[in-house]
């Protein structure tokens, strides 16, 4: 039961991420979701807990990630630590988010 939009109407995280600077390690995403039939409750929750909105449901009801806007906070790692559905690493040195203010 995902109510992301109903719970926060009109808030587009993409517009917020647009302020940030990133050096994307093209073709080498630092976070991966393992193949699954049905996502666990924990994995499903990432579609609204991720502060960068990196996680979304596909047509088959599986959770997918686009890590380009990732701020490397680690929330998804902590939430799915028990289920092991997310493989999480820091980006290679120098890549990823570059905070100007932090």
């Amino acid at each position, binding site marked *: 039961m995902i109510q992301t939009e109903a719970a926060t109407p009109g*808030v587009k995280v993409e517009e917020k991420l647009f302020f940030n600077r990133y050096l994307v390690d093209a073709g080498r995403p630092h976070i991966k979701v393992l193949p699954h039939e049905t996502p666990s409750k924990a994995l499903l929750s990432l579609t609204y807990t991720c502060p960068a909105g990196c996680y979304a449901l596909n047509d088959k009801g599986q959770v997918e990630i686009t890590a380009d806007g990732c701020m490397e906070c680690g929330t998804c790692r902590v*939430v799915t630590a028990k289920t092991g559905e997310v493989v999480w690493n820091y980006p290679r040195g120098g890549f990823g988010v570059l905070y100007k203010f932090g």
Partner: protein
Amino acid sequence: MVDEHFDAIVIGAGPSGNAAAYTMAKEGLKVLQLERGEYPGSKNVQGAILYADALEKIIPDFREDAPLERHVIEQRMWTMDDKSFVGMQYRSEDFNEEKPNRYTIIRAQFDKWFSRKVREAGAIVLCETTVTELLRNAKGKVIGVRTDRNSERVMADVVVLAEGVNGLVGHRSGLRPELQPETVALAVKEMHFLPREVIESRFNLKGDEGVVIEAMGTITKGMTGTGFLYTNQESISVGIGCIVSDFAENGGITPYGLLEAFKNHPSIKPLLADSECKEYASHLIPEGGYNAMPELFGDGWIIVGDAGQFVNAVHREGSNLAMTTGRLAAETIVRLKRRREEFSKVNLAAYRARLDETFVMKDMKKYRKIPGYLHNNRHVFNLYPKLFTGAAQSWFRVDGKDKLTKEKEIFTSFRKNRSLIGLVGDAFKLARAWR
């Protein structure tokens, strides 16, 4: 680099890592500091308040060239419902002192400055380098690290893990358990820019005076968490954070939605009017306190800062604990080095003894029951703020009703919503957790 051997390797260039690297390098140790960001600070997020006392003990004259924003002369604590807040505030001319006690800072700028000091003290700081694992000898003693630069190995007598809240290296090396969603908070924050005159008139400030607002209540939609708003010279840091498990179990509230609602609260919105947002950031905060702390040292390794859960969630202190633990770990290492003693678990226990003597462990221990209290008492964030603001409105609105009736109504509202036993119980549990 491969063939070189260092006295100490420090993983991470945040406040704890910088404090440790600076202290050791200044005492002549051969120090290598590894940072995964392009520059120190590029991955670091904080509100941010700098506590002068902790930094003074490391760099006494830091005020001469550190990038400081405003010194804090006023603290506002707000308990909020959807339309109002009941506040407590403290402002004093005493905070306009020669050496102010707290400053707002912008971390990316501050961390660059601190890192420059570390390099000037003689440490080698290598950025864009992520540590992937700790290296151990046959006896299990940590003897160096492997990095993601061609899987290079670098050796050292001791490794200081100042890697921050996620503690990935320590966890993957089996030194510490995984973080729990119940004991870590997710905070999101925006930087809003305004001309400094506007900030000064809006917050009743002159010169470099600053105000901080800490807020709790229905702004976190029943989740355990707080909001904040800090004045910088030409910007305002505004953010909100809640325990990760609360976000995950609360059925669809997004962190950015929560932040947007906080910014649009009628008491916050005018403070941010006409500002330009230039950055959106997120970070985890270790909030588990004393009971969630991992082992802090072992054969050849020592943990400092957020990686060791050194955050006083009640007082919103963290960077001072980070700097102090970094300094105490470094002083322990320097002393052992001078005496040519081994960096064994037994010898590094001196670090723990130093921590116990200072405010660090005393405060961590004092509040050890608070995380559990808050976790099991959501009324603190939802019901009580509404009762307080309702009482305030009833008390201050002049509407022909006599005061005795108003008093009775306020008392009844508390009793009806939380029963006498509940009220007394909450107060008793809080008092016990606070001791």
